[in-house]
């Protein structure tokens, strides 16, 4: 969706402000949110794509005014309800009003190590990759209302395939409820001027990681 989360090339957000000696968490609740997210993904209730999609569906004002972990919390509230694991009246009450639903697994202390390893998103591929390094491609001019990982600033622009990264779970399908539908993934490089016009930094190149359905030959 063309949401405010798709920030590449937007103006007006001001300077980047690094914080010296930044702590891992700025308040204890932030750590609880991160830990709950890890533990809930472990139950198989949702994956990272579904988590991102939930955050993108927040109203734009809420997305922009919330901090990172607030967005995670808001997304999780949406995810637990959408997945049928918690009911809205329970969120309002602040306690469980009904017993839990069965989940695939619940994380125990013995399995903690698995909470810290990123999942693998590589999958056996459908047929052969359509593109190879050096091929010129054009990002499609698409505007899906659902979740997608093709940022607006490259849509319609031509670039060059630099690398084939294997075949990966396709976020657009997972979040549409149509399964992993693995697709070839490419690093596609764009010239700064092709993205931002004549006044762009002439030394700039930008790459995105683009799934094959996002690309046409150019």
């Amino acid at each position, binding site marked *: 969706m063309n949401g405010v989360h798709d920030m590449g090339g937007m103006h007006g957000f001001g300077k980047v402000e*690094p914080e010296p000696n930044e702590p891992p968490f700025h308040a204890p609740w932030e750590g609880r949110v991160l830990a709950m997210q890890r533990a809930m993904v472990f139950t198989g209730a949702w994956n990272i794509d579904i988590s991102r999609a939930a955050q993108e569906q927040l109203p734009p004002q809420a997305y922009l005014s919330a901090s990172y972990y607030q967005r995670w919390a808001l997304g999780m509230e949406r995810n637990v309800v959408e997945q049928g694991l918690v009911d809205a009246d329970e969120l309002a009450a602040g306690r*469980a009003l009904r017993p839990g639903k069965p989940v695939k697994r619940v994380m125990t202390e013995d399995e903690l190590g698995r909470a810290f390893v990123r999942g693998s998103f590589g999958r056996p591929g459908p047929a052969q990759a359509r593109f190879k390094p050096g091929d010129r491609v054009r990002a499609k001019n698409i505007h899906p209302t659902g979740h997608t990982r093709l940022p607006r600033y490259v849509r319609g622009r031509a670039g060059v395939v630099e690398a084939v990264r294997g075949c990966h779970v396709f976020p657009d399908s997972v979040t549409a409820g149509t399964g992993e539908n693995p697709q070839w993934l490419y690093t596609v490089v764009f010239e700064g001027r092709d993205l931002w016009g004549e006044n762009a930094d002439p030394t700039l190149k930008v790459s995105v990681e683009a799934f094959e359905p996002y690309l046409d030959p150019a």
Partner: protein
Amino acid sequence: MAMSPSTPDRDDPHDHDHAHGSELSETQLRVRALETILTEKGYVDPAVLDRIVEHYETKTGPHVGARVIARAWIDPDFKAALLADATEAIGRLGLVNRVGDHLIAVENTPKLHNMVVCTLCSCYPWDVLGLPPVWYKSAPYRSRAVMDPRGVLADFGVALPADTEIRVWDSTAETRFMVVPRRPAGTENWSEERLASLVTRDCMIGTGVPRRPEDVS
């Protein structure tokens, strides 16, 4: 700052949650409620959540990535392996239990400077750099890095030669990137451990350069 997505007008910019007060913020209350519900329903175990938080507070961080870079600086074979397949090469070092798949290391040269961003969310190589800093997840960085990387570098006090090519990597899938910065001059014969002290988090994201020898001695 209010959390209700439907009532943004209730946002209070003065309530930052990390302010110290006896009153619980709406955010704290909602997060606590969510944990209560998930616990009562048997989906999560609070003791396990404690351990997860502890892990991120004490075990992860850019010190892991710093060791990787220092090794790459002194060991050409390791550097070649790192650039070919960072997940596998770092996995063999034994610094962390297991490095997640699809980690890619990209090398700075005298003519090329790499910078990593995630414009769509905040994808970051947690395995080697720990939790991302707030600025990495912020709108200013996510919006500007792909369009005005030199302006972003200026915010960090970094100025590159005008003819240095800048390559920005937008992490739009489950591939993750770390930058291999250039080894500072004057560090010949330095040990791996001493070299690691020059490697900052920001230089592995591409918004900084390594410390100079005189900065640490």
